[in-house]
C-alpha cells in the first residue's frame, strides 16, 4: 500500500483514498476553433506513456476531493513529490536522471 501526501490535507494518506486521473500539465488550446483535427486529437486523446518520471494528476476522492499533481516513477512506483496545481514540479527527467535504469540500456525515445 502506498502512502501519498495530500498537499491540501497536509498529511500522508493511504492509496485507496486517491484516484489517478492521468497525465498532468496538458494545456487546453486557447482557440479550439482554429485547431486542426490532428492538434485537437492530440490534445483530447493522446497521452505520454513514459518509462520513468511521469507528472500525473491525482484526486483525493475520499478526503478533501481536490485535485493535485504528483511526480511518479512508473518503474518503481515511487512518488517523488506531490504539488499543487499551478505550481511547477521539482523533479523532472532532466534534473533527476533515473538511477533505476542506469544499468539497463534505454530504448530510443519516440
Amino acid at each position, binding site marked *: 500500500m502506498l502512502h501519498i501526501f495530500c498537499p*491540501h*490535507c497536509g498529511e500522508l494518506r*493511504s492509496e485507496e483514498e486517491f484516484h489517478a486521473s492521468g497525465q498532468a500539465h496538458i494545456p487546453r488550446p486557447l482557440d479550439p476553433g482554429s485547431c486542426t483535427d490532428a492538434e485537437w486529437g492530440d490534445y483530447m486523446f493522446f497521452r505520454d506513456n513514459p518509462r520513468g518520471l511521469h507528472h500525473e494528476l491525482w484526486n483525493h*476522492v*475520499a*478526503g478533501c476531493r481536490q485535485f493535485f499533481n504528483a511526480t511518479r516513477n512508473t518503474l518503481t512506483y515511487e512518488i517523488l513529490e506531490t504539488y499543487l496545481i499551478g505550481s511547477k514540479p521539482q523533479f523532472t527527467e532532466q534534473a533527476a536522471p533515473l538511477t533505476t535504469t542506469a544499468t539497463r540500456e534505454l530504448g530510443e525515445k519516440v
Partner: protein
Amino acid sequence: MTTANVYQQRPDSGAKAESSLHHANLAGLIGKGRKNPGVIVREKKLLGHLTLRGDAKDPAFAEGVHKALGLELPVALSLVAKDQTSLQWMGPDEWLLIVPGGQEFAVEQALRAALAGLHISVVNVSGGQQLLELSGPNVREVLMKSTSYDVHPDNFPVGKAVGTVFAKSQLVIRHTGEDTWELLIRRSFSDYWWLWLQDAAAQYGLSVEA
C-alpha cells in the same frame, strides 16, 4: 445581488419527518442492548447541514463567517463547535456547517447577508446526510476494524475531522470528545452503515441511545 433561490426547505408543521434510519426503528431498540456496552450509538437526526464554499484567503470571507456564526473558520482537518453548532473543514474552499434542526434557514440568510458581494456558495444539504454518534470504551476498536486511517489519539486528537475510506465506502469521521466520535454518513448508505456497525460492534456489545 444573488440569484440563489433561498427558501425554507423544512416543512413548517404537520409534515412527518423521517430520518434515513427510520426503518431500523432505533427508538424501539433503546435499552435492549447488552449491559455495560462497549459501543453506544446515537442517531443525530434531522439536523440542518449547510455546505459553505468561499475563498479562505479572503479576510472578508473569514470575517463574514465569524460575524454570522461566531465561529472562526477551521483550518485543514479540523472542526470548531459552539453549543450545538459546528463548522468543519471539508476542503481548502469548503466547510460543513451543522446547526440544530430548524435553524438552517435563518443561518443561511445570516450567512448570505454577512457575505453579500463575495464569491460564495451556501447549499442546504440537510436531506442528504446525517450524523451517527458513537461513544463508549470500544469505539476506537470498531473504527480500527473499519478504516485504514490511523485513529490513535496521537494522530487523531479531539477536534479533528477527516474524510476517509470506511468499510469499503467513504464517510467523514469526526472526533468530538475523548470517547466520542461522529460519523457523517450519506443517507443512501445509512442502512449499510447501520448493518456494518451492528456487525463490527457485536463483540463489544452495542447499545442504542436516544
